[in-house]
């Protein structure tokens, strides 16, 4: 069996038994990447990376991850290696420091792959079509999107071009691509994982999380990356449990809520039936499932697109051609009329279309005369959405929903209609607005062979419940053992 096709935990066992070495794992991955990535395009800047000469990290500080390589999304800072958020405006940027999650992974002996995964520029997107480097292709059907914005990470894991990966999630950017690519993706509770070194999109919504081949691998990575960080003033000082201890715990009697607003007209019938099957499976395993209402569901997308874009307009103000990245040629060496002229030209040329659209929308929502009607109103509706979830978790252990209303759509299908693209986030978005954790895992396939994902949600800092339910479901099905055949 090729090493690159195995899970992280299987490789940890093999390394412990001296049946392989970290270098052999890296070599197996390299071979697979050079073979499959010309079609999948999960990675960026393949030609100019140091990846060719990559050697394992085996400093043996706390050698949990045993030198195994991990793939990182292009918006997480890796010292000395390009981190560009797949945007022209950050071309050539080499961070002068490691993100906290990178520091933690290195300390646990992970080998950080010097090859970043593709993403929608600045995480603005649900399809990875907004990348400066072009789209990633879904390994299950190369004409389809892998989802976004962590499409590269999800596709790499699905195609065995990665052992495991990190992504980031602001409105569903880990969970939705995990669902489209048939892999596991977890957005931790807001504040669980440090955002230090994650290039910010929306500071009150962003989280870094694992994208993996199975639930055990996800728990292993969560153990490493979670925890309070003094460098992130929004990280929370709550103890990190050993998430692997939740794997294999009984789920009899677990109360699951199914929100009726998430099973509606316009939802793909194959997604609906896959979820119904999954719910029946959970019932057979002893869970109690009941229908509930989350009445403010329909307001989540508009609330998100005000709050997230408002925060983005502020976070992206720093990209101005002064300290890093791209500066417009027309504004260089005495040609610019003024500093503001340089800012405008640099940002006009350096940002892609979706980035400009969101910055303008966000700036508008915060501007004088519109702040109350849009931004402040959105913050109040956010409270109403949160109250729906708080009420549900008083009675129920978790909520189950589809991750996306449809399976992966075709490349080019939604890109011309931003609103249509935004609406595809309907099931994932409330999770970021309320700060709760959510995991997506495979729960079936469509007749055309596209993966369908199930999302499990629970209350803040309740990731142990997610692992408990997810693992038992996974081990009683075999979706996670399916692999795409890349044509």
């Amino acid at each position: 069996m090729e090493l690159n096709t195995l899970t992280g935990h299987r490789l940890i066992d093999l390394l412990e038994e001296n049946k392989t070495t970290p270098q052999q794992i890296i070599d197996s991955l390299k071979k697979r990447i050079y073979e499959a990535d010309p079609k999948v395009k999960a990675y960026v800047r393949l030609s100019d990376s140091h990846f060719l000469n990559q050697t394992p990290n085996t400093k043996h500080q706390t050698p949990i991850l045993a030198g195994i390589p991990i793939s990182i999304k292009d918006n997480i800072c890796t010292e000395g290696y390009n981190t560009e958020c797949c945007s022209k405006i950050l071309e050539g940027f080499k961070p002068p420091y490691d993100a906290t999650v990178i520091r933690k992974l290195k300390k646990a002996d992970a080998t950080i792959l010097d090859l970043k995964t593709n993403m929608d520029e600045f995480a603005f997107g649900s399809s990875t079509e907004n990348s400066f480097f072009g789209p990633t292709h879904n390994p299950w059907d190369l004409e389809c999107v892998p989802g976004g914005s962590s499409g590269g990470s999800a596709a790499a894991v699905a195609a065995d071009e990665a052992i495991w990966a990190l992504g980031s999630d602001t409105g569903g950017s880990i969970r939705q691509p995990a669902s489209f690519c048939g892999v596991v993706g977890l957005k931790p509770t807001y504040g669980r994982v440090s955002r230090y070194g994650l290039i910010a999109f929306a500071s009150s919504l962003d989280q870094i999380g694992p994208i993996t081949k199975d639930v055990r691998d996800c728990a292993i990575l969560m153990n490493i990356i979670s925890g309070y960080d003094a460098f992130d003033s929004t990280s929370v000082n709550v103890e990190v449990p050993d998430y692997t201890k939740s794997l294999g715990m009984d789920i009899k009697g677990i109360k699951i809520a199914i929100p009726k607003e998430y099973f509606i007209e316009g939802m793909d019938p194959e997604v609906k039936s896959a979820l119904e099957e999954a719910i029946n499976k959970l019932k057979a395993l002893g869970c109690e499932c009941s229908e509930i209402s989350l009445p403010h569901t329909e307001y989540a997308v508009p609330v998100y697109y005000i709050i997230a874009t408002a925060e983005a307009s502020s976070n992206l103000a720093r990209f101005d051609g002064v300290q890093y990245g791209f500066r417009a040629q027309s504004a260089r060496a005495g040609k610019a009329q003024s500093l503001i002229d340089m800012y405008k030209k640099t940002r006009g040329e350096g940002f892609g279309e979706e980035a400009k659209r969101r910055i303008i929308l966000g700036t508008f929502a915060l501007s004088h005369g519109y702040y109350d009607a849009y931004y402040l109103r959105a913050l109040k509706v956010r409270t109403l959405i949160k109250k729906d979830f708080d009420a549900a978790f008083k009675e129920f252990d978790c909520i189950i929903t589809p991750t996306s209303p449809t399976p992966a759509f075709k490349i080019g299908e939604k890109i011309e209609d931003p609103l249509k693209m935004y609406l595809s986030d309907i099931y994932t978005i409330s999770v970021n607005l309320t700060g709760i954790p959510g995991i997506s895992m495979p729960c079936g396939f469509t007749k055309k062979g596209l993966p369908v994902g199930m999302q499990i949600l629970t209350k803040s800092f309740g990731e142990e419940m997610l692992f408990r339910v997810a693992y038992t479901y996974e081990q009683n099905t075999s979706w996670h053992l399916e692999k795409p055949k890349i044509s």
Partner: protein
Amino acid sequence: MAITKETVEYVAHLARIALKPKELEKFSGQLQDIINFIDKLKKLDISNVNPTSHILPLENVFREDTARESLPLDKALMNAPCRKGNFFVVPKVIE
């Protein structure tokens, strides 16, 4: 709420982004559609609701005001598009 080309132009100026005429045209249409969609929030009664600007009950996360090692100058300047000594070089600011 009507989003005209003038609205977009003004907001783009606030955001320091130079838009081409084609982009201005395209964005006004798209942003109009998005704002129309967002306007459904007006249906809700929010008279007695507090805003949630931050999901965690954290307040004033401070540390001791003591100097610590910080990013060395060379590292801070290493990505500069235009550098001269210890400075980032930019077009003239003062007339």
